[in-house]
């Protein structure tokens, strides 16, 4: 877990709307380290799924990357042709979506999904070889090999999600972006799927970006966690550190508002207000209207996204930990 596999630099993604552009991802820089599970958490509308799609340049329609670089294996994906990009998707970059039923083709057998992916990227393989590899793969993920002749509707939700991940890793890809992969699953199936993700990380040295709103899921599997709020990163750090000592007031509130089944007599924190409209985000720090520690400067100037201590991988975007520029405070 030393070198970055994927480096996001100053990425901005905008949605064109009738009332102006909405910045769902606003100047975000983040490294995904080789072999790690990075949890990206945030509430709905914070831009986490937009970010996930942009990493594969899968954003469509009104969404547009207006700035930034996406470095993956020494290539800036922003400069690649759509043909080269298509080669990378499926072979080096895999994606798993929330709802496996709408991501799989209902009139195609599972085996056809898998062999199509393989033969598209490896045209010299025979159909027979692809089928054998498909059988091996699903068996590795805990599905009986003969079930690959089933259609998606003949499988349970948990099995369908395993098929999705088998598609993502069919060609030994380096990075899997999993967007809410367990949200449609029941807790026991979810727990099994999370165990599977950890196994794949260990056995295949897979790197996973796990996008979720579920704090418990992140705590269970992620090595590092990135917290997103209103298109910005609020905090990034080692999972143990962030959970033990969250620094950003939003992270603090978020962690305290999650029900914990193992805690007796605990109290749920009620965060006031709702996330802002991205068409008209608040000035300065976007969390300042809801922040219990708000200071004068917070509404005036945006905080930098800086290490907590010099050289610390734990980064936070909050004025509480930054030296304030004196003249701005004077103006307030």
């Amino acid at each position: 877990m030393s070198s970055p596999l994927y480096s996001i630099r100053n990425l901005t993604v905008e949605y064109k709307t009738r009332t102006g552009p909405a910045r769902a991802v606003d100047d975000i820089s983040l490294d995904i380290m080789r072999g790690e599970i990075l949890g990206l958490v945030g509430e709905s509308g914070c831009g986490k799924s937009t970010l996930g799609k942009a990493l594969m340049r899968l954003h469509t329609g009104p969404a547009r990357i207006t700035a930034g670089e996406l470095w993956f294996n020494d290539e800036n994906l922003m400069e690649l042709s759509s043909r080269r990009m298509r080669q990378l998707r499926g072979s080096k970059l895999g994606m798993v979506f929330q709802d496996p039923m709408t991501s799989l083709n209902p009139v195609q057998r599972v085996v056809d999904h898998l062999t199509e992916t393989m033969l598209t990227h490896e045209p010299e393989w025979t159909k027979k070889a692809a089928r054998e590899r498909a059988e091996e793969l699903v068996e590795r993920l805990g599905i009986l090999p003969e079930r690959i002749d089933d259609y998606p509707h003949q499988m349970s939700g948990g099995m369908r999600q395993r098929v999705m991940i088998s598609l993502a890793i069919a060609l030994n890809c380096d990075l899997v972006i999993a967007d809410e992969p367990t949200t449609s699953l029941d807790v026991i199936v979810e727990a099994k799927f999370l165990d599977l993700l950890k196994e794949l990380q260990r056995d295949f040295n897979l790197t996973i970006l796990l996008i979720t709103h579920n704090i418990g899921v992140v705590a269970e599997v992620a090595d590092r966690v990135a917290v997103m709020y209103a298109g910005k990163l609020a905090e990034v750090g080692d999972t143990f550190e962030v959970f033990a000592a969250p620094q950003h007031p939003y992270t603090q509130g978020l962690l305290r508002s999650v029900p914990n089944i193992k805690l007796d007599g605990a109290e749920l924190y009620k965060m006031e207000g709702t996330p802002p409209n991205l068409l008209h985000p608040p000035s300065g720090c976007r969390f300042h209207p809801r922040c219990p520690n708000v200071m004068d400067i917070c509404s005036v100037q945006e905080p930098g996204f800086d290490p907590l201590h010099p050289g610390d991988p734990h980064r936070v975007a909050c004025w509480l930990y930054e030296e304030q520029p004196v003249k701005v405070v004077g103006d307030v």
Partner: protein
Amino acid sequence: MSDAMIEATGVTGGPAPDGDALVQVRGLVKHFPLQSGFLASLLNRGEVPAVQAVDGIDFDIRRGEVFGLAGESGSGKSTVGRLILNLLEPTAGRVSFDGVDLSTLSAGDMRRLRSRMQVIFQDPLASLNPRMTIGETIAHPSEIHQPELSAAERRRVVFEMLDAVGMSPPDNFADKYPHQISGGQRQRVVIARALVTRPDLIVADEPIAMADVSVRALLLDLMMRLKDEFDLTYLFITHDLATAKYVCDRIAVMYLGKIVEVGPLTSVYRGPLHPYTEALLDAVPVPDPLHRRTEPLPRGEIPNPINPPPGCRFHPRCPIAVAGVCDAEEPYLAGPNSDEGHLAACHLRTGAHQDLDSARFRPA
């Protein structure tokens, strides 16, 4: 700070007041017959296979308590909610509300009784008519159940309700449409609409599942405040056992159409008796990276409710199942602490074969 928090029932919340039952469910069964063609019905000699969504359950909901009904998808928990509201007709068994057997009521009597039982569903956007303003939406039940009110009086009732659910000032919201407000506010409108007729019982079917993490705590807090303010009884249907912990007084866990365990929440969570409850409680993701699961996850997945396994329905997945016992006979709800009302349906833990469980797992 304490004002900004709600308490978990884990320690401070007392047991439900031992009062009379508002809802009694006895031997409740709901089978949904599968559609089958002419030829199939000939071959089956008229016996139509059915999804056994709810298959013989009993419980009481006491006045003033929050009764949780938990289970995974397909366990039948939502069907039970609909049966209690008489939105579905039971295949067998009965539901009594305040001592009245719902199956004996005429359509008119049932309609009148409906004002005393209301429902909140998971998706507020789907529960609200997009072409009705918030004010019209909340006024609607009142028009049906309180036709005697004048327009001005009705407006006042609507404003009162908006105030009660924390949407103030009400005239800011009454003329808005559902798409103009946030998801959390929409669910508040659904709650306000449920309260207009001053019901006794609210069936809340996954009421916060669609809400964002930071909004959930506020909605739960609101529901608990309204419970005191309006003397409500809740049936809280959820798949989320962590949330249930913060609101429920008692809880029933369902698996494949059966209740496998029921009891006071603290007692069930601290000492689950049924292996399924154990597994379910252990599988819940915990927001603490230091926490590790202790129980092995059950094998396989939930079987098909058209052909549930014989005997105990959990036996094919159960880590302690004993052949010849668990697959032979159906267990019934019983318990060592039955005076507390903590019951489970397990041959090995609460049934006649407890010696088998102790022989296997607690060798002398």
